[in-house]
């Protein structure tokens, strides 16, 4: 890769977005198309009034050409996110979110705000959730354990976010707490 060293440590958010683009979403197509084989698989056929599952990249491409409506996933609405936000702020653990919710939500908010209900509110809620979760993952830093790290329900974007720091922190900790090799004569004196 020809990226500068600072970016080589972990995957960039756009790359994660690209990975998330393979996820399937439901669309209501406005054009008909036969079943077509792509590199990642065969999708279709598109028949205008019937719903169809296609990967997110295809959905956003069609949406930009005004050839489909995207049906937002069940978790991308105000009630669900509000619920998760209260969980997030009241409970100590991470609430359960889809693994790639941040990427999918960003793509949908960018491409198809008119297919979402109240995109403004959704955007604010997502931001709130992200901040609450970010605070938790920072808090988790103090519990950093050299042997294992368990953070349940952490999403892809958040893992990516803490990855560089946590990886280095862990390796430093491992070095510090490494148990002295057994049977060292120096210790016994």
């Amino acid at each position, binding site marked *: 890769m020809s990226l500068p060293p600072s970016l080589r440590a972990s995957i960039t958010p756009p790359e994660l977005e690209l990975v998330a683009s393979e996820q399937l979403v439901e669309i209501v197509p406005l054009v008909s198309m036969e079943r077509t084989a792509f590199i990642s698989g065969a999708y279709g056929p598109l028949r205008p009034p019937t719903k169809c599952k296609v990967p997110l990249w295809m959905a956003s491409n069609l949406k*930009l*050409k*005004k*050839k489909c409506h995207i049906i937002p996933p069940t978790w991308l609405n105000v009630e669900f996110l509000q619920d998760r936000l209260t969980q997030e702020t009241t409970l100590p653990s991470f609430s359960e979110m889809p693994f790639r919710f941040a990427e999918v939500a960003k793509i949908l908010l960018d491409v198809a*705000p008119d297919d979402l209900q109240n*995109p*403004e509110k959704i955007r604010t809620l997502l931001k709130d959730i992200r901040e609450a979760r970010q605070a938790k993952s920072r808090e988790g830093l103090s519990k950093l354990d050299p042997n294992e790290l368990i953070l349940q329900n952490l999403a892809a974007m958040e893992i990516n976010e803490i990855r560089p720091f946590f990886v280095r922190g862990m390796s430093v900790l491992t070095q510090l707490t490494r148990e002295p090799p057994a049977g060292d004569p120096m210790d016994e004196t």
Partner: protein
Amino acid sequence: MVYLPPPHLASASRPSYAEAYAKILAAHRRSPKTAASSVIILVSPDVDSLCASKILADLFKQDDVMHRVIPVSGHAELERIRDELTTYTDLHTLIMFNMGAILDLPSSEWFGDFPTSLTVHVIDSSRPLNLSSVFGAGENGDRIVIWDDGGVEHLQEERKAWEVLTYAPEVDSDEESDFDSDEEADEEDDYEEDEEDYEDGHSASPSRKRRSLDDGARRRGKRRKVDQPNRLSREEREQHEHRLMKYYESGTWHGQSAAGTMYILATVLERVDSDLLWYAILGLTYQYITSRISREEYDKYQSIYHDEVARLNPAPPTVLGDDLKAQNADDNSIYASDELRFMMFRHWNLYDAMYHSSYVASKLGIWKERGRKRLTGLLAKMGFSIPETQQPYPHMARDLKMSLRQKLDQLAPEYGLVELSYPSFMRCYGYRSQPLSAGDAVEAISALLDIAGGTRIEVEVEGARNGGEWFGGGKVWEGGREGRLRDDERENVPPDILAQVVKAQVRAQAEGKANGEGGDVDWWVKNFWSAFDALSDIERLREAISLSMALHRAIIRQGSSIIDKQDIKTLRGHRVVILAQGPDLPLFVHPGILGRLALWLVDALRDRANATTPAYSRNKRKSLPCVVACLNEKTGTYMVVGVTGAADFDDFRKNEFGLAFLDAKERCNARTRHGTFDTSVLEINKDDLKVFLETLCEGGERY
């Protein structure tokens, strides 16, 4: 059938816009080589065609049709492009916006020699249409497709006359063949002359318009002679000829805007959204602001768009007014609004906005001390203090803003300002800008089209008024310089020869400075692209508003000084203004700006004439046509614009200057050139101006 009726008149046997579009797509998908040069869009530099091309480009983009947009400045440029296009082998669709309706396109002079796979679509708002483009059949006629707005339905008589003249043989074949060869020789002359430009203006050439009508018809008449035995009597022929002449000579006017036609296409394709609707509204508003259509026409289309706005946008917030704000960060919606006839008052201060609006200026007589007093008097009566009205409008006291409408309604009629507002639209741009009204957007874009680059102009810096920000004053506008054309050049150059290119550029600049505009030949192409970009980029559009203000400042300044110094000569029923000196000359050589000045003068003088001669005014309601000429010092030519003033504000009269110009040119052998598609704009050699104007006015008596 080579003209397309609008969808509501279409039936199964008469294809309409959608079918034509489907054909373009089909042709594109069928063609083996899909190069970007297979679909070409020619656009004339005005706001309407700009919006139309933007809509079509959006549609093409959605359908993955590769296309190329080429700005074309005028007929001479169009001829050059035509010659270039003959070398494109895979060209199959040519779309022309706001050009070419008057040309005899099926003839071999234009597109007759092209391979038959080429289809030419003409979407032109200017009228009259060339009948052989509209009705011509056969291999050549069929591929010229005129997108009509329904006006052709009323041309049945003309159609009959045209068909009779075209397909029926001449009365006297001897005379006809004589005549024909004459005409052809003449035409060759004429063509050469066009090539050599107006330097060589010794032969009186018949007008292109008339030529395309006359001999186009006659030559085809000859061709058909053999297989059509029934002959016409001389009277019948004359009658038909007369009818056609009447159609062509009644002057030029405008039909539905090209952007409107494109919007209808988007509607039948069911792909409209707020963006496309906004472009269509801009196209319409442009026609209205530049007095191309009457208020009635405007109202007709405005009500259509009003319904569309209601359909595509959320219900407007309850507090509608001049203080409309975007509801949230993503709010790009359009609202219908009543627009005051003040120039960009939301972005300027109230006093300047009123001062620079042509309506207020003409009603109050702003060019005189007394008029300015009347304006301050009106503001004082409304309870607006002068310092307050000098504030930028967004910072004006809130209670004043709230009561502005109501106060104006109460007091303005005293000053004769009865039609202070017109129904229009506003668009929100999230939190990136204040809502922009259609009129303001059109002003900004047309300012960019005319003078985004190539001319030096000072714009006012916000907050720099009254000596604020050190000494006040403005800064030189340089927004247009960062156009994308320059970036493109930079991108495509390999690094090793960059140094040479830079050197060459430096040299070119030095030369350009030495001989003025010569080094910067295609300033208008750059302007076109910066305006094209500004259509979808609110940042650029907002910057352009200050440019437009500077432009209007110059127009008012020039206009006032013309009236003040009484530079207007009245020559046999024409008002003639010649600008030969002054600081703003380089500005007014742009036909668009000169046209605005002429319109301003017409507006201003109409009411003055009525006011000073009240008894006279009843029978002399017809206001005089106005000719404005401006000296271009660099090329030694005059730019001449003719405007027929309508009797009333908001009214409209057919512009008869297109033919009058040609007629006068013919009679006095002036060296002239049509630089634009507007026939009422002419460029004329410096020495020929005087005799030309005299001839023009003499000829004008006939009308």
